[in-house]
């Protein structure tokens, strides 16, 4: 929707992008002086991006142009004021989140604004908090690829990242990890370092073939385990090596999807499943790994066999699992 980076010659958007913010402000001041009635129309232009509206915000307010703005633009300015308030009134903070224009404004801020990350501290804070509102409040997963890209871009510039990273994981979507994984094989060392931190994986050295292997292994692991992943509550605010996403071995053993946010089964457990889990709980940790991995693989390849296997005594399950996978217990 906002992917077209071109802007018609002469528009405020064109001037900002080609001649800079100050030239844009000067031109806007001329327009206010000579044809004030034309100013709202220029601001409401569909091609206008958030960076331009943000840059002109003081002049818009000083000239009393707010009332002529589109609802989306008015909502965007309200969001800016809210984010930059010294002490935010809570909860909700006076923003009508159920208003479609407000939702659209948050989305527009992030989608058109991310390319100008670094415009100012205030601008970046608005971007960061818009991202967190979109992922947490609106469950807007469409921004996750762009959000991942912004995190790594800003990381290269050594800027403040933690709120953006927090916003990314507020999606509570294990599949979102696939947007971080490609940076495991990046030629840029800062990219790899951050990807290792966020995915809780070890640094594997300077050999690029190993980066590719680590990426492929991770993607396979994600594919196999995503229904059983949950968010632990750890974050960069609480730890220097957070394990943000964990694998629920019980869920994998039962092949039962869990809520990634609450770590509870999506469908309630049956009495048979509860019984299976009580047997599973008696196994050693290394045995639980073997059992859950085998269970998942068997369930995918042969559901009938799995149905027989899951009802066997756990010792028998383990014997078959060890034979079936060829793995030995340590």
């Amino acid at each position: 929707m906002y992917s077209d980076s071109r802007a018609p010659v002469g528009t405020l958007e064109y001037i900002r992008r080609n001649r800079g913010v100050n030239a844009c402000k000067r031109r806007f001041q001329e327009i206010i002086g000579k044809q004030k009635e034309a100013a709202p129309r220029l601001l409401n232009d569909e091609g206008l991006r958030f960076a331009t509206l943000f840059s002109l915000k003081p002049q818009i307010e000083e000239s009393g142009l707010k009332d002529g703005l589109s609802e989306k633009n008015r909502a965007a300015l309200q969001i800016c004021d809210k984010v930059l308030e010294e002490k935010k009134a809570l909860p909700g903070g006076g923003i009508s989140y159920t208003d479609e224009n407000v939702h659209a404004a948050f989305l527009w801020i992030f989608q058109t604004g991310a390319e100008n990350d670094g415009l100012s501290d205030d601008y970046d804070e608005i971007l960061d908090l818009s991202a967190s509102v979109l992922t947490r409040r609106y469950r807007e997963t469409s921004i996750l690829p762009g959000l991942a890209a912004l995190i790594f871009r800003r990381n290269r510039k050594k800027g403040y990242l933690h709120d953006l990273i927090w916003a990314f994981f507020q999606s509570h979507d294990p599949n979102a990890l696939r947007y971080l994984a490609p940076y495991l094989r990046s030629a840029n060392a800062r990219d790899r370092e951050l990807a290792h931190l966020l995915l809780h994986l070890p640094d594997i050295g300077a050999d690029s073939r190993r980066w590719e292997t680590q990426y492929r292994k991770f993607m396979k692991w994600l594919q196999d385990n995503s229904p059983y992943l949950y968010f632990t509550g750890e974050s960069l605010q609480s730890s220097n090596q957070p394990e943000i996403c964990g694998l629920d071995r019980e869920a994998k053993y039962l092949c039962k999807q869990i809520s990634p946010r609450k770590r509870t089964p999506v469908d309630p457990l049956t009495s048979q499943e509860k019984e299976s889990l009580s047997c599973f709980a008696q196994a050693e940790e290394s045995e639980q790994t073997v059992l859950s991995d085998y269970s998942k693989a068997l369930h995918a390849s042969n559901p009938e066999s799995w149905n027989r296997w899951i009802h066997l005594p756990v010792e028998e399950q383990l014997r078959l699992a060890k034979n079936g996978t060829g793995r030995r217990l340590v």
Partner: protein
Amino acid sequence: MIFIAGKQITSEELSNLTHENTERSILSQLASAEEKLDYDSSEQLVFELRLRAQTVAAAKELDKSGMDFAIFRKSRCNPDFWDRTAEGGFRLKSGAKPSEAISDIFDHGRKYATECATAMVIVYYRALLAVLGADRFNQVFPKIELMNWHHLDRLLRDVGLMKKYPFYLPGDRRYFANPDVDPLTPEWQGENVIDLNGKLYYGHGVGIYDADTIIRSLNQNRIEDADETAYLMDSAGRPDFKNLYRISQNH
């Protein structure tokens, strides 16, 4: 149960180890633990008691210092001792003495503003300064960067690493998580705290309160449809006391 060089310590030996109140209280908790706690020497044990007690003292001192709460984007520091980094952290200024720079935060708190995790790191540096003395502290920590749990000196790395322990003690760093925080106020996503006595906790920006009060503060900053309360995580960041003791002995 405390074992020193493989031998369980007697109650008489315990009573002679320290006479300072906070240290005695920590010692009593260690001695009554069901787990076997091994130390190489009584000096090593006393070092841990001292560092824990000084951590508690430093937390109380920082609470009274006047240092403001601010998110990283709006953090501030005294430029006589620190350079503010692009991320909002504080890096020791070239030529500044580490001991004086840390002390300045406590002496001129109003010149500083940061968030709760960085405050925890400041507390540990202050405690180490008290235990090691200025000369040794300056040798051990010639470069300091204060930015929550990141860019931490390797000697303090364990403070930033959350682990589950069988029990928790004064001087531990704990974390209250707030999973349903309002997304417009990420600064309320959780609170890093220092355990002062098992009942009271110091959190920068919150103050010194019990767990229920801190949880209530966090809950007041949740999203409207919140269905999860804030809670104290069953884990702690804990300095590597034995390694720090070894460092303290290497003159």
